[in-house]
């Protein structure tokens, strides 16, 4: 077998693709993952980062709820360094119907979700940021999960099991022989190199872009893009997930994630052309703040860091009477059965939460096609980095007296933090002061985690995600990147693109301290540094 031939090619470096890659590689398949941009650039990296307990779906979609709670418990075990076990509250506001609480709790119990009705006073003590006027509260096992880390860890494990990853590589066409997909034509978007890869099975895990990938392969998947807008507040206002105890609606979840908290979301159907460039409108910003402040009043006077939007790949299963509608959320289409196209599978729908289950379903389908009889082990085997239960334990195990940056690195990388180079004090120097990212951690991301741009670095280390939004760290990190790839001209453009990308999330909420910071950043880069 030449090095261009694989058992399976996965298109899409989101969480579904990464999870499928891991599962395939763990079952011994020779796996290639192709991603036109970077890890987690689509819906994977553009949501709340909520570790659903399933409670949100319990009333309307019990099947999803059951999937969520099962996967929730699995992720706590296998992805401890990506998960923050915060627990969550479903609160009833005076304007909400308290009677719904009972329906909700019953539905949760049926789905196997622990839902404990607690005294509103206790809820206020547990989570002081919550609206003091609440009339009811239910405690559920929600949490938060860092999608970038989760995606990176799955991909890394896939690689450790022999899989290969090609980032910044786009599929330009399929290699098709009559009714069979034999492989893909690709182009590397950085180097321009064109290559063909072959495999008996190709998996479309392109999220909303899977629609176009399917079209390219000659089949139709009925998806429609739904934009969801979110706001990031500059620090953690809450330490428990806060939800509204009512039928799911706009802006009714506030999730604490790493150093920030995130309110969302909205849901608007948008045309496919807009999927690559979604932006947050002033009306969406207003709605998110207004609704968010009802749950947590202090949001009305808390600094907002940025606004962003993601596109959910909603699948209109009803359009696909022939499709294998595995569950109401997860859609796995074997195009041989459905459309007579051999060697092609689409895995879509689902949620960040259920990525592992999606991967398992997809990999089962792949194995059936390849006649491979291997059991899925992803539910039992911890992801690389998650071998310890907490980052406190990790940090203390690796370093006798962990510094702030080392503690932060342990929280981001789990046990893999031990691989950060700490040759001397210079490696411990901070590149990003807001999020405590050291030179060593940045170099590790460049050398070991395939980061080739500042935005790649951001997803792997959190540089530029803190209060200053890259004002100081971006040019420092650019210096390190330039040193690694050697092309200054490229790095100069990369720096501009990074700052542009940050600004895109800043100006929709450009007032107060955010505008002050933006003015300062503009001043520094234009007038002081002369970029």
């Amino acid at each position: 077998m030449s090095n261009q031939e694989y058992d399976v090619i996965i298109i899409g470096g989101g969480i579904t693709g990464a999870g499928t890659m891991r599962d395939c590689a763990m079952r011994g398949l020779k796996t290639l993952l192709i991603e036109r941009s970077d890890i987690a650039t689509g819906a994977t990296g553009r949501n709340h980062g909520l570790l659903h307990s399933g409670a949100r779906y319990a009333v309307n979609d019990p099947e999803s709820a059951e999937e969520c709670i099962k996967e929730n418990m699995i992720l706590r075990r296998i992805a401890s360094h990506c998960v923050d076990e915060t627990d969550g509250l479903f609160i009833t506001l005076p304007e909400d119907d308290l009677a719904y609480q009972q329906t909700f709790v019953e539905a949760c119990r049926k789905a196997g979700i622990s839902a404990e009705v607690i005294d509103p006073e206790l809820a206020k003590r547990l989570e002081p940021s919550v609206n003091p006027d609440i009339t009811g509260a239910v405690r559920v096992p929600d949490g938060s999960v860092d999608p970038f880390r989760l995606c990176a860890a799955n991909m890394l494990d896939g690689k450790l099991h022999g899989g290969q990853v090609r980032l910044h590589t786009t599929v330009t066409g399929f290699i098709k022989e009559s009714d069979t997909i034999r492989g893909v034509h690709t182009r590397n978007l950085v180097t321009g190199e064109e290559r063909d890869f072959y495999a008996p099975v190709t998996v479309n895990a392109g999220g909303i872009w899977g629609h176009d990938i399917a079209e390219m392969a000659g089949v139709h998947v009925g998806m429609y893009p739904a934009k969801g807008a979110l706001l990031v507040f500059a620090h953690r206002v809450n330490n428990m997930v806060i939800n509204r105890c009512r039928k799911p609606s706009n802006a009714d979840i506030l999730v604490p994630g790493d150093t920030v908290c995130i309110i969302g979301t909205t849901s608007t159907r948008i045309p496919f052309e807009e999927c690559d460039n979604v932006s947050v409108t002033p009306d969406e910003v207003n709605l998110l703040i207004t609704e968010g402040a009802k749950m947590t009043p202090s949001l009305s006077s808390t600094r907002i860091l940025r606004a962003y939007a993601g596109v959910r790949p909603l699948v209109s299963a009803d359009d696909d009477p022939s499709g294998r509608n595995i569950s109401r959320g997860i859609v796995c289409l074997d195009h041989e059965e459905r459309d007579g196209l051999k060697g092609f599978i689409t895995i879509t729908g689902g949620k960040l939460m259920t990525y592992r289950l999606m991967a398992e379903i997809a990999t089962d389908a792949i194995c059936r096609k390849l006649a491979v009889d291997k059991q899925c082990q992803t539910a039992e085997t911890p992801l690389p980095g998650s071998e310890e239960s907490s980052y406190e334990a990790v940090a203390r195990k690796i370093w006798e007296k962990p510094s702030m940056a080392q503690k932060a690195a342990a929280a981001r990388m789990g046990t893999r933090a031990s691989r950060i180079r700490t040759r001397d004090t210079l490696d411990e120097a901070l590149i990003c002061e807001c999020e405590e990212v050291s030179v060593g951690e940045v170099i590790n991301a460049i050398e070991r985690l395939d980061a080739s741009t500042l935005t790649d670095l951001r997803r792997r280390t959190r540089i530029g995600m803190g209060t200053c939004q890259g004002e100081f760290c971006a040019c420092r990190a650019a210096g390190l990147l330039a040193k690694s790839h050697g092309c200054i001209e490229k790095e100069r453009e990369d720096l501009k693109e990074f700052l542009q990308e940050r600004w895109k999330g800043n100006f929709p909420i450009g007032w107060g301290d955010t505008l002050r910071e933006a003015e300062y950043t503009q001043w520094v880069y234009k007038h002081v540094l002369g970029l």
Partner: protein
Amino acid sequence: MKLQEYTSSTHNFEECMKCTVCTAYCPVLQVNPLYPGPKQAGPDGERLRLKDPFFFNYALKYCLNCKRCEVACPSGVKVADLIQAARIKYDTSPPKWRDRLLASTDFMGSLARPVAPIANAVTGLGVTRTMMDAMFKIDHRRTFPKYSPYSFEFWMGRHEKEQAAFGEQVAYFHGCYVNYNYPRLGKDLVKVLNALGVGVQLLDKEKCCGIAMITNRMTKEATRNAKHNVSELSKAVDKGLMVLTTSSSCTLTLRDEYPSLLGVDNSSVRDFVIMASRYIYERLEKGAALRFKPDYHKKVAYHTPCHMEKLGWGVFSEKLLRMIPGVEFTMLDSACCGIAGTYGFKRENYEASQAIGQPLFDQIKAVNPDVVACDCETCKWQIEMSTGYTVMNPISILAEAIDNNKTE
């Protein structure tokens, strides 16, 4: 309020623009690489601590609480408050005995004062200092302030009637230092105020302002004192009295640290507690007059104590001193002397403390004044010990310069 009309955060930490100006003015950072610096310890660290107390860094103890970061901050972030509040909230280990000892100025004073000559002799002994160093890690190179054989409160008790005779009255929060170590400053204030036709009375019972307790994490004790003092101050304020002080650190504590670090509401008394130099300046500005000795001459170099800088009231002391005929005034560059209350007494901080103060000591030696003026007692100890120059409170210089017989 409209949504997002304004934003707020604990000690304004979200107003930090990450400009790093505070780090350029932090005196500790220049001498101690173990200290993460005000930006990291303050607003940057706060976001991480809000995520998880695991991110509390014990190196925050190296902060002097000089507040120069706050004075320098272009964004109004209460950097030092953030750091002290974090120490109070997250460092739950019991304070060391040494720290308790140093912080209990009131208690130590009342113990030592009756046996002042012995206490002074003992703390001055080389062997005692070596022992204190060994037992408590109080640096043996440090000289201790002398205790007075009588307390200021005792002296005031004997002059109560004559003070009550003045038509106009003010209250005086003298602080531990004036009471136990240096009643002369209190007497000087009485002299100056009397010369302005104002009588002085004490609070019914003041307690140590608690600043040393705050920085040594004796929060419970500090809060108790704060509540007591606020209630005592209220009594004076209710009588229509202004409450004067002669120590910039006590003043900052009474006015600003009580609410911001201890959560003790002092809003009803805060505006009535002011430095005596400000009070006297305002009297003179409104037309009161002091007569000065015609032959008075002194070369005075004024050092702005950190907490005076934070109060923003150095200008009153400066203008008062400049008013005295015969005073040749030099303004020293505003910089920390390094003592920061009990900080410099601790063995682990001694070197840093002296290194921080060095530029100031050098400048004083270059100016070569007759006397250094400053409104803080711990600066006085530090500067006197480190330079050999005499340090006087501006009020004492004023008292020395006025001609009692001729003042109306």
